[in-house]
């Protein structure tokens, strides 16, 4: 750690030093953007995977449980660094924005142009509202505990309602083959996926059957609890991986 600079002797950078510091800011921002586009997108594809890829995987139980739980990881780690070392409350929003940039690129080029799926079948979900709340919560509370409990919970609880405006229309019923399907199910039936038989879908499986038909809120609250724990875990992973030792020498 570098030595504390006394307040009295602190002089802000001016002139050439200020310009160089600003150039450094942009350099880091661009690098961070590409790093998070690649790494967070990869992490998300490997963990959330099909729940985010396909419209007919976005169910009431697993999708709102798994997506925020895996989605809060990088935001927590990056917040740990950007807030603790720089008091910058933008880690979560930056990460999720980078994830969405990578996701949209993959959906358009890999899924649509390369593998011929209609883009509406592979629309990604958004976690931006939850990420902004997470950033604001950390900034206002300046507390890991409060952010983990309330911010983590908000990140999970806001996920399903913020995505319902995108995906509700895909849950309209259709009569097809003497049965009732959603439009989303019909996408899965019609647009052939050789490696994705219907039984592979991990949807609507579980024991949330004793609360009437309110599976989505229950899954969201379960996710909220887990997100609070996951947030702390990844906060410390972020702290563990990050260093400002080079900055301290400037």
């Amino acid at each position, binding site marked *: 750690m570098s030595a504390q600079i006394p307040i009295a002797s602190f002089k802000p950078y001016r002139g050439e030093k200020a310009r160089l510091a600003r150039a450094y800011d942009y350099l880091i921002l661009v690098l961070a953007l590409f790093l998070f586009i690649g790494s967070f997108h990869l992490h998300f594809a490997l963990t959330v995977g099909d729940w985010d890829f396909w419209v007919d995987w976005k169910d009431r139980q697993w999708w709102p449980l798994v997506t925020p739980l895996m989605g809060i990881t990088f935001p927590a780690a990056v917040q740990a660094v950007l807030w603790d070392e720089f008091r910058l409350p933008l880690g979560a929003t930056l990460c999720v924005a980078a994830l969405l940039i990578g996701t949209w690129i993959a959906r358009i080029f890999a899924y649509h142009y390369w593998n011929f799926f209609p883009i509406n079948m592979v629309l990604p979900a958004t976690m931006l509202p939850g990420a902004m709340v997470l*950033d604001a919560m950390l900034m206002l509370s300046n507390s890991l505990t409060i952010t983990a409990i309330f911010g983590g919970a908000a990140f999970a609880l806001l996920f399903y309602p913020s995505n319902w405006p995108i995906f509700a229309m895909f849950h309209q019923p259709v009569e097809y083959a003497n049965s009732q399907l959603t439009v989303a199910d019909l996408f899965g039936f019609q647009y052939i996926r050789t490696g994705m038989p219907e039984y592979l879908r991990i949807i609507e499986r579980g024991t949330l059957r004793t609360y009437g038909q309110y599976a989505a809120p229950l899954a969201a609250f379960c996710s909220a609890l887990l997100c609070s724990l996951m947030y702390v875990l990844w906060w410390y992973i972020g702290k563990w991986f990050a260093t400002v030792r080079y900055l301290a020498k400037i």
Partner: protein
Amino acid sequence: MKTLIKPWLIAMLWIGALFVLEMPAALAHGEKALEPFIRMRTIQWYDVQWSTQKFNVNEEVSVSGKFHVAEDWPVSVPKPEATFLNISTPGPVLIRTERYLNGKPWTNSVALQPGGDYEFKVVLKGRLPGRYHIHPFFNLKDAGQVMGPGAWLEIGGEAADFNNTVKTIHGEIIDMESFGFGNGVFWHLFWGVLATAWLLWWVRRPLFISRYRMLEAGLEHELITTNDKLIAKAVLVGVPVLVLAFNAMEINRYPDTIPLQAGLDQILPLPAQVNAGTVNVDALKAEYNVAQRAMVLQIKIDNRSQSAVRIGEFSTGNVHFINPELPAARHKPDGDAITTAGLNIDDKQSVQPGEQRVLTFVAHDAAWESEKLDGLIRDADSRIGGLLFLYDDLLGKRYISSISAAVIPKFS
């Protein structure tokens, strides 16, 4: 300098060669990759036919046929409690519009019964022009993909002409190719703009080095201004309020939505078509001669029918060995399945009604090797399985038996 130029020159030549040389397309899609004992002793396809192999975008093609679920289902393969009749395509170049099992339309996965007989039909609609090698196949949960016979399909026309409209229960006609896309983009843009504004609010001011130094100097209070706090409070309250308001609007807009459907169909098998009890066949012994690429099978036939019967065909893993001496066994090829006249029987006399006879037949062809079926002798479960087709001498009526036996390799 010379030392630098040379490797660069070689690298550029290699890259140039990649563009100049003809690159053959990879046409196979792993149909021979599954271990032979699974291909032979799970789903046993027969009578698979395509309605046409040349059609245009928006036109339909159907593939229909039958399959027997082997009684001798391998112990290492989970029982077919969840399976899915699929079509191997390079992406959705066709769409699946209808699918039937034993005449019933079905969209989900299905549980099959070992020993059961089924007939299927899948209707497809051309979406993207091109020439594609397509198979019907079964996804078996926790086991893999058992391919049926493939065929080359040629789709003509223009991709832009493709249309796929569906009517919802409320009567709304929707275009599946574009439905919900504009709405999805709108919401992503909406939240994207707000998130970008939040990011720009912070990025517009000096960031890393400056803030780090100020934090180290104890000037934390200068890093977060009153305006910052005001905006953060607005975000903390405003974003959830917006989310809940938009969510409520959407619930009102689509009040009759339903959850994703996740049923497993239970469709009973047909009355026995294979091993129907009229002509029973029991495999006694099987030897595979590696050098001659020949499978020698000793079987016992118990003819309980009213007519004399003879062996016409043995099929396994989409390879059909035909008895060339039996006109009744005229074989209409299943797509591009391998058909060979390499079936020899030691006793050419018909098996008379009421007679039980042990005889030996040899199925020999290079297909054992080219189709990677000879790998059976190196499998953990080295038992062969297949369908034996017998025909009566009078009417040409067909009797089908699913047989299986442990295979003994003969290396010389």
